[in-house]
């Protein structure tokens, strides 16, 4: 793989994580400026870096997200749950693409489509916020957006309309900087090679005076275009001049602008009457649409091609041709133009009185026509056709409202006011009110903040950033392994010193070796600590996915849950953290699914509606402890006991005798699950027993604290690092075995008589507690012979929270060593967790006490 791409992939993942984390913070605290800046920077950097590779769809999607965040950052919009969902899903998609890039070095098929769909959705939210958020000047600019469309030759608009075929198009306006020629820019080339150009228009952006008053090396042109490429693709094309370009998604109907001079004649009135009848007929029977088509072409043949009516007829034909009567409203509007010959005032906008209520909003063709019709009706006409005129007006308006998806309920009273009181104001207001579809049609690209954006990276990459070296984990792991072997090799010096003294009788030699050993020991320890700290990562690496998980799961369950994370800076070895990830997810899911109650239940119990799940991490000696607690209903110990008995894990008597806490901890046994029905969240066939197995395998343990009705907490303890294990060697029947130091609570020497027999088991009293005793030789099936020693060596180990005394023949030295898992034919051997090499070259078997006992 290209080394640049190899660097990009982890960086991109990192940025995606940072962005997702920040977005979740923002959902809860939209005013958190630090968070929005962090998210924006992450997304901005991702967009910038991705530009180095051939991943256009990815860059465009991230760009859309960036624009949305930029708007949020400028205070223009709040990120509600829906938008947060959209952003997170988009980041997920980008994450998947990064995975694909890693494996195939290209984006998956369909990325282009998915990118544009998602980008449109993201930009939709952005557009939806525009009317309230943009400063007035920008809004006025948006209001101008369609003015120039009419300047495009009708043939080009017709062609573009056909290409659009009902889909939205993209209109853009590009005003190059005055001095752009000096920087080597050729705006015309940029415009020529813009994607999907359907129509182009160029105009001077100033009044051109006498030719000799101009400066030929200053750019004074403005370019307009209509394209069938997505706004994202155009934004990509114009990315170097983003601040000079406005990109707006338009509907194809925005192109329907009849132009020309008015022609007169009775033929038009006849046509409109016929056409309206034909539309009615066509609605009932689509096969009759052909009649309308032919009347249109007949009339077009009789009309001067440059006239307004001919233009309207051409648009009628284009609308009919594309989709039959689906667009009858627009066709009727055009027919009204033909009837009145009155649309010359439509484009460019003449700003009629009705717009005074909301001058920035630009009415579409239908609205403008409706207003025209009202004006026309208000002009006095012959009394005998007044009723007919009103009916025609009312029908047009009803159809218009229906097609625009606006509530028609208010239309009738407004029509009545017009008819009886000749008061057009209610109607005008109704028509000029923002329509629901508007969101999709308003401009999508903010132009003002672009300059701020360009200044951003310098700030982000400023001196505050620590200097970081990205190193492949494999390299670190191989160093860790070498250090671990060094630690083992170092042990052999100790053994050598013993031999020098015992076998060669040279005490001085022995001492010198021991001195050399202590020096090497010190250096090795330093090296070990150093290399381990390289692998140390803040727990946050694992925890940062939880806000998202909790949010999604809680929403799916209809619960309200706040997640509190504490001690995210606590550090632990990377491998340890990785082994922690899955159990934690399961525990948190359990808490959400079984622990926290629904809001209704919680209110009924007098608890706050919102539950709390707390994940707290801390260091305890050589362990990292992670506690997941909730304030839910806790574990129903009665049910757990019942279940355990039913499963045959316990006898009923034993279950009765158990303390509450012991009973609660039964949920870590296989087959004990408190909910009978399997939910699709936590009931994935993975029980808490799997959690325990995983944690124990990683050298840790897990316990549960339970307060019925008030919540429960699960506590995971894991060793900080897994590479080097401290073990105690014990002697049993002449063989040496290793026991991990982590398990050992203490070692005691017991007089034989203090061991008491309880039926056929043995136990002894340790500080007022009865500790059961197991003899290692028996458990391992070794022949111990009959020793009658006065004292027994007992190692008290803590297995899953219970103390057990293990009787051995004697304690030997402690050592730090690397435990290798059993492999080959030993792999299935029960009772041993691995092997280690001793200083004298012997192999030591490490006991898996949890299994043996």
């Amino acid at each position: 793989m290209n080394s640049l791409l190899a660097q990009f992939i982890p960086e991109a993942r990192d940025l995606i994580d940072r962005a997702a984390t920040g977005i979740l913070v923002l959902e809860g605290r939209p005013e958190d400026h630090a968070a929005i800046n962090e998210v924006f920077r992450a997304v901005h950097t991702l967009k910038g870096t991705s530009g180095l590779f051939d991943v256009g769809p990815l860059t465009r999607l991230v760009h859309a997200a960036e624009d949305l965040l930029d708007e949020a950052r400028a205070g223009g919009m709040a990120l509600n749950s829906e938008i947060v969902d959209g952003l997170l899903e988009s980041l997920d998609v980008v994450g998947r693409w990064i995975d694909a890039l890693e494996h195939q070095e290209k984006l998956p098929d369909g990325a282009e489509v998915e990118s544009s769909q998602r980008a449109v959705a993201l930009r939709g939210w952005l557009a939806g916020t525009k009317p309230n958020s943009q400063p007035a000047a920008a809004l006025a600019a948006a209001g101008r957006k369609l003015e120039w469309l009419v300047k495009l030759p009708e043939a080009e608009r017709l062609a573009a309309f056909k290409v659009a075929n009902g889909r939205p198009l993209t209109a853009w306006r590009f005003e190059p900087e005055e001095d752009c020629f000096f920087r080597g820019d050729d705006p015309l080339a940029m415009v020529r090679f813009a994607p999907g150009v359907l129509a182009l228009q160029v105009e001077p952006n100033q009044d051109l005076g006498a030719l000799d008053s101009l400066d030929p090396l200053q750019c004074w042109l403005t370019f307009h275009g209509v394209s069938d490429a997505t706004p994202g693709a155009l934004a990509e094309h114009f990315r170097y001049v983003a601040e000079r370009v406005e990109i707006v998604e338009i509907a194809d109907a925005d192109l329907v602008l009849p132009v020309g001079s008015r022609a007169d004649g009775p033929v038009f009135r006849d046509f409109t009457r016929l056409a309206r009848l034909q539309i009615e007929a066509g609605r009932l029977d689509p096969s009759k649409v052909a009649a309308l088509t032919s009347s249109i072409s007949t009339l077009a043949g009789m009309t001067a091609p440059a006239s307004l009516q001919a233009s309207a007829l051409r648009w009628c034909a284009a609308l009919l041709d594309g989709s039959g009567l689906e667009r009858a409203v627009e066709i009727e509007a055009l027919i009204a133009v033909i009837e009145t010959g009155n649309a010359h005032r439509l484009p460019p906008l003449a700003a009629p009185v009705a717009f005074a209520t909301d001058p920035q909003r630009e009415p579409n063709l239908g609205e403008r026509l409706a207003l025209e019709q009202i004006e026309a009706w208000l002009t006095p006409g012959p009394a005998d056709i007044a009723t007919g005129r009103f009916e025609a007006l009312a029908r047009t308006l009803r159809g218009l409202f229906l097609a625009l998806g606006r509530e028609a309920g208010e239309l009738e009273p407004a029509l009545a006011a017009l008819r009886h009181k000749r008061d057009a104001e209610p109607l005008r207001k109704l028509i000029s009110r923002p329509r629901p579809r508007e969101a999709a049609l308003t401009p999508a690209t903010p132009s003002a903040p672009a300059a701020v954006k360009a200044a951003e990276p310098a700030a982000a990459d400023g001196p505050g950033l620590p200097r970081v070296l990205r190193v492949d984990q494999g390299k670190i792991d191989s160093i860790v392994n070498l250090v671990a072997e060094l630690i083992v090799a170092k042990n052999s010096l100790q053994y050598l010193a013993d031999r020098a003294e015992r076998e060669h009788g040279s005490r001085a030699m022995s001492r010198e070796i021991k001195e050399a050993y202590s020096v090497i020991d010190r250096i090795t320890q330093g090296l070990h600590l150093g290399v381990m700290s390289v692998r140390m990562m803040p727990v946050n690496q694992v925890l940062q996915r939880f806000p998202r998980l909790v949010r999604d799961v809680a929403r799916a369950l209809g619960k309200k849950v706040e997640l509190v994370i504490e001690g995210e800076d606590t550090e632990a070895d990377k491998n340890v953290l990785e082994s922690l990830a899955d159990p934690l997810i399961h525990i948190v899911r359990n808490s959400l699914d079984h622990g926290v109650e629904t809001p209704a239940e919680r209110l009924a119990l007098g608890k706050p509606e919102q539950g709390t799940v707390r994940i707290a991490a801390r260091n305890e000696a050589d362990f990292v402890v992670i506690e997941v607690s909730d304030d839910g209903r806790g574990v129903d110990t009665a049910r757990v006991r019942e279940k355990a008995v039913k499963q045959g894990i316990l006898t009923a008597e034993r279950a009765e005798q158990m303390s509450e806490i012991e009973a609660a901890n039964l949920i870590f046994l296989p087959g004990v699950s408190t909910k009978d029905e399997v939910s699709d969240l936590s009931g994935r066939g993975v029980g808490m027993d799997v959690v325990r197995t995983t944690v124990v395998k990683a050298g840790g343990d897990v316990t549960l604290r339970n307060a019925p009705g008030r919540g429960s907490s699960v506590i995971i303890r894991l060793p900080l690092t897994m590479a080097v294990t401290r073990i105690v060697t014990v002697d049993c029947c002449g063989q040496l075995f290793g026991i991990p130091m982590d398990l050992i609570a203490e070692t005691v020497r017991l007089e034989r008589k203090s061991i008491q027999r309880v039926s056929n088991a043995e136990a002894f009293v340790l500080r007022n507690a009865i500790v059961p005793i197991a003899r290692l030789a028996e458990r391992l099936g070794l022949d111990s012979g009959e020793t009658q020693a006065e004292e027994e060596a007992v190692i008290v180990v803590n297995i899953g929270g219970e103390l057990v005394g293990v009787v051995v023949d004697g304690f030997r030295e402690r050592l730090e060593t690397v435990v290798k898992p059993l492999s080959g034919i030993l792999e299935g051997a029960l009772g041993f967790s691995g092997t280690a090499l001793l200083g004298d070259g012997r192999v030591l078997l490490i006991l898996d006490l949890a299994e043996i006992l």
Partner: protein
Amino acid sequence: MPFTIDGARVRLEGHCTVEEAPELFQALIAIERPRFDLAEVAHMHAAVAQVLIASRGRLEQRPAERTLAACLAALEMAP
């Protein structure tokens, strides 16, 4: 030289770069009603295009290339 002047008739061809814009500009100031033949233009720099537009000349031959022609639609065709 990619532009040739013959009376009021100005013929451009090939790639017209930004370097030619000032020279063309000076030439056009002296011509009362220029008429342009752009049939052989492959590309013209925006600086050249705006000089043509500002000169209020007429087109004798449109550029063959569609987008270029659209950009110069502001210029009327010579009768």
